[in-house]
């Protein structure tokens, strides 16, 4: 019971004053907290991050981050699009009358996260275009290089200039940022400066995994472990030949050292019943690399695949199981790449349902392990950051943790790991809100991440 004590007006404020002063002092200290100066590379990455998410290049309002969403693994999915407000810059074709025609297809964008690209030229905007998904920008440091030079974008030829990742942003601004489809530099947009291109490249290369895996891993789950065996078996799954170590590069034992990222015509364009086609909207065939194209597309990384669907350049397959099953079908086995595989090994790829699911389980576990690695790194990073920035970093750690939970749950895998991940998520969320207990909560969240990882791999 609260005693009925009469207080003088303002006495509560006076009583709380020392606490208030203390809190203000602590806040001031936190705000003035000295941070070690960023090294040149870290400063360049930070500058690139700022440009990536905030620079519109005097165009239609889009930034790089409009399509490569940090909260959606630097890609874009229909589920994420559904959460965006109508005035998001992604929907500029719906809000800017100058971009209403021949700039995007809003129906295909909203339903399948497809973006319009004039890969083969701008002379016939109404008819000459492709509809492509947004590839994530994770682990680019492991996937862009090839013996023939850099491979960017879905078909490997996404950048103007020297074709490099550095030059990619220039092409993206021209294709996706203009105020009108006249695309006049200095009028409809400005081109990135050399310094901006340097910073954007540094930022993109800093995202995600920095090294290739070394398969096989000592996986705990029997299904994922069997999936790994099938993946690596050159007589069965044959996956590792083009996705060495579940990355984006050709197996050096087959393609030679330094082959790097390779282009193949795997027949994705020949898939029947592609979702975008089913709408009746115009979706011209995509001829891939070059102009005119040779039908080839470059090989994407697989470690980050399971939580970055839909899959393939045209977002034609929604699930990782479907993406693995694609290689069983006529579209692949009748394709130039499939025919070569038959010629070289005597057979195409022919996995049964359990084997498809096992390979997908393997990819799900790889993805979850990468989520755990990334979340842990973010948790560690947040310890050195100021309150506001640290909170942002912790929210990204939450997103990574949620991805791990969903990726495992989607395959019915490792429920015990999911429990640890859910606890890690709870602690991370709490840490993001807490001022005084952030350090302790962050350490506990890292411990839960480690427990989850131990459920997946020895």
């Amino acid at each position, binding site marked *: 019971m609260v005693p009925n004590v009469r207080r003088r007006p303002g006495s509560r404020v006076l009583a709380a004053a020392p606490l208030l002063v203390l809190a203000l002092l602590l806040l001031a200290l936190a705000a003035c907290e000295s941070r070690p100066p960023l090294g040149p590379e870290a400063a360049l990455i930070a500058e690139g991050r700022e440009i990536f998410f905030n620079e519109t290049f005097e165009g239609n309002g889009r930034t790089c981050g409009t399509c490569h969403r940090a909260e959606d693994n630097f890609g874009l999915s229909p589920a994420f699009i559904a959460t965006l407000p109508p005035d998001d810059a992604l929907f500029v074709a719906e809000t800017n009358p100058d971009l209403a025609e021949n700039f995007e297809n809003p129906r295909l964008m909203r339903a399948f996260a497809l973006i319009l690209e004039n890969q083969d030229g701008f002379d016939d905007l109404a008819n000459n275009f492709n509809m492509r998904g947004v590839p994530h920008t994770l682990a680019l440091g492991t996937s862009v290089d090839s013996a023939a030079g850099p491979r960017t974008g879905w078909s490997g030829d996404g950048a103007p200039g020297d074709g490099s990742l550095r030059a990619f942003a220039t092409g993206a601004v021209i294709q996706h940022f203009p105020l009108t489809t006249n695309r006049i530099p200095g009028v409809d947009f400005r081109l990135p400066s050399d310094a901006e291109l340097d910073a954007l490249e540094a930022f993109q290369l800093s995202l995600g995994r920095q090294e290739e895996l070394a398969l096989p891993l000592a996986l705990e789950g029997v299904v994922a472990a069997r999936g790994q065996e099938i993946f690596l078996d050159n007589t069965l799954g044959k996956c590792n030949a083009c996705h060495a170590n579940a990355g984006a590069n*050709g197996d050096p034992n087959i393609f030679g050292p330094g082959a790097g990222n390779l282009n193949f015509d795997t027949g994705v364009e020949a898939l029947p019943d592609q979702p975008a086609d089913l709408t009746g909207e115009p979706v011209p065939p995509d001829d891939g690399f070059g102009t005119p194209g040779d039908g080839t597309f470059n090989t994407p990384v697989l470690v980050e695949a399971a939580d970055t669907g839909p899959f393939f350049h045209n977002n034609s397959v929604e699930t990782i199981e479907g993406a693995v099953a694609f290689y069983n079908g006529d579209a692949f086995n009748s394709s130039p790449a499939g025919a070569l595989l038959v010629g070289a*090994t005597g057979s195409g790829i022919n996995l049964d349902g359990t084997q498809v699911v096992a390979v997908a389980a393997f990819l799900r576990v790889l993805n979850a392990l990468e989520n755990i690695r990334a979340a842990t790194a973010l948790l560690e990073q947040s310890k050195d950051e100021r309150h506001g920035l640290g909170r942002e970093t912790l929210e990204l750690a939450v997103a990574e943790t949620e991805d791990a939970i969903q990726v495992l749950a989607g395959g019915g895998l490792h429920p015990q790991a999911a429990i640890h991940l859910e606890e890690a998520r709870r602690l991370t969320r709490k840490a993001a809100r807490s001022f005084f207990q952030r350090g302790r909560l962050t350490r506990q969240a890292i411990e839960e991440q480690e427990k989850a990882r131990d459920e997946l791999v020895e």
Partner: protein
Amino acid sequence: MSWSNSRGRGRSADKERSTALRSSLIVLAAAAALLWGPAAVEGQMMTEQFIPIGQSPGLSSTHTDIGEIETVDPAARRITLGGRSIAVTARTRIWLDRSALRQANVTGGFADLRQGRRAEVKYEDAARRVSAEWIKVAPEPGG
């Protein structure tokens, strides 16, 4: 990556299978190389159209020549720029760079390559510099 140590078991079996198949897969690799790779990496030429003369990232001035067109030989489909005779082939893309006029850059043709016009040439073979992969040309002399 440091998720865990690589698993030892199964490695020798994998190695044997890999060795047995290597020769046939080398055929695959060779065929792939013949058919697709390494196709010369090219920039995404279509957005290149909108980049003004001298501003192509990683290319301009280092891998391209920029200057005034000195001579034009329509019969031989050749131009001279910087004292170098350059073949303009059926594959060569020609773009009119009208950005200085605040107009859209458009696809051009050989007839747009005129003496005195400022141009930038990217070569099909950057080392030999014999034939043009693309040419950007300004619409007016000195423009």
